[in-house]
């Protein structure tokens, strides 16, 4: 956490403090990564669920946002499905300042929706 007397410059660079207490699992629990691609696609496009499209260009998705990188050629960028899963579970592990929400850690997605969206993203 930033000290109360941090400079604003530092805060602007870092852009945030963290107040939200960790959810049920700070660490990603062991799980079978064997979801359903089509169901995962629905999670990624649904405003009330993943809403990944709000920030990412995804092939076949309408009116994407531009905050995150395009989700294409995933298997050339990640060594394993599990690494993709870790990114989606809690992206702040790799980059504490990232704005992408911690979908697993904060319980934004159910485990089934999570496993499905991982499968879908891995397929892109």
């Amino acid at each position, binding site marked *: 956490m930033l000290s*109360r007397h941090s400079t604003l410059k530092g*805060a602007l660079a870092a*852009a945030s403090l963290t*107040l939200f207490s960790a959810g049920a699992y700070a660490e990603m629990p062991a799980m079978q990564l064997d979801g359903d691609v089509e169901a995962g696609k629905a999670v990624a496009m649904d405003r009330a669920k993943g809403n990944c499209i709000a920030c990412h260009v995804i092939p076949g998705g309408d*009116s994407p946002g531009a905050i995150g990188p395009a989700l294409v050629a995933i298997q050339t960028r990640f060594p394993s499905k599990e690494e993709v899963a870790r990114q989606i579970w809690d992206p702040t592990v790799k980059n*504490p300042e990232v704005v992408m929400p911690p979908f697993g850690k904060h319980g934004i997605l159910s485990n089934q929706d999570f496993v499905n969206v991982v499968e879908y993203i891995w397929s892109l």
Partner: protein
Amino acid sequence: MNKTTALLTAACIGGLLTTPLIASTPAEDQADWQAYFQQRFPQVPKDDFVNGVYSIDPVGRENWEAIEEFPPYEAAISDGESMWNTPFANGKTYADCFPEGPGVAGQYPHWDKEQGLVMTLPLAINQCREANDEKPLKYKKGPIADLLAYMTYESRGQVIDVVIPEDDPRALEAYEQGKQFYFARRGQLNFSCASCHAGNSGTTLRTEILSPAFGHTTHFPVYRSKWGEMGTLHRRFSGCNKQVRAKDFEAQGEEYRNLEYFMTYMNNGLALNGPGARK
């Protein structure tokens, strides 16, 4: 961003977080803040930040300028003017509380040493009503937005000059709390105000362009098409808290008044241009 640069940035920011930082004064914060947005949007003249997202979105701006030809907040201004002129049951009027007249929005928010709190214009309006045995108004919309629309309209062009008085440490404390609030991540979605309006200002969240925070307080209350009516600054705060699935705070409660104090201080030097219209 490719992986290497992402990791590098993370490392640099990590450094900033762990290095003990030197205390910064509000004046230094303000200079950093204004420089940050002017560097991020070099094409925007400083005075134009008061126009919010339309300062950076030429297409949206055309629509908005057409809307401003027949401003949707005009009825609110005239209803507010009637409120200003209508005596309370005891025969007094708002002018008894605001002897300089309705055009005083530029004097708010300010540190009220006697009460030990950040005084905003809506709070001053309700204190005036209560002193005259009238019921306080609700803070997010309705009559208070009308009266604010009129008073703000009469204050157009006043230059923001919020002061953090040095003779009362509680004023600096209120400022620091507002600043903390701005940068604190909250809600299930884990966003801070700065996540959207500093670090990602100018990018798009789905189809919505995120406006720069610099200029955010200059034009309230606003007529918002999505609301189909007028709303106050604290109504907007509450909406932005809720959209990241965080608990919102009470309008005109201490948290939002301190937040307004910080945000308005960051805007010092910009001119008031409310009421406004937004989509």
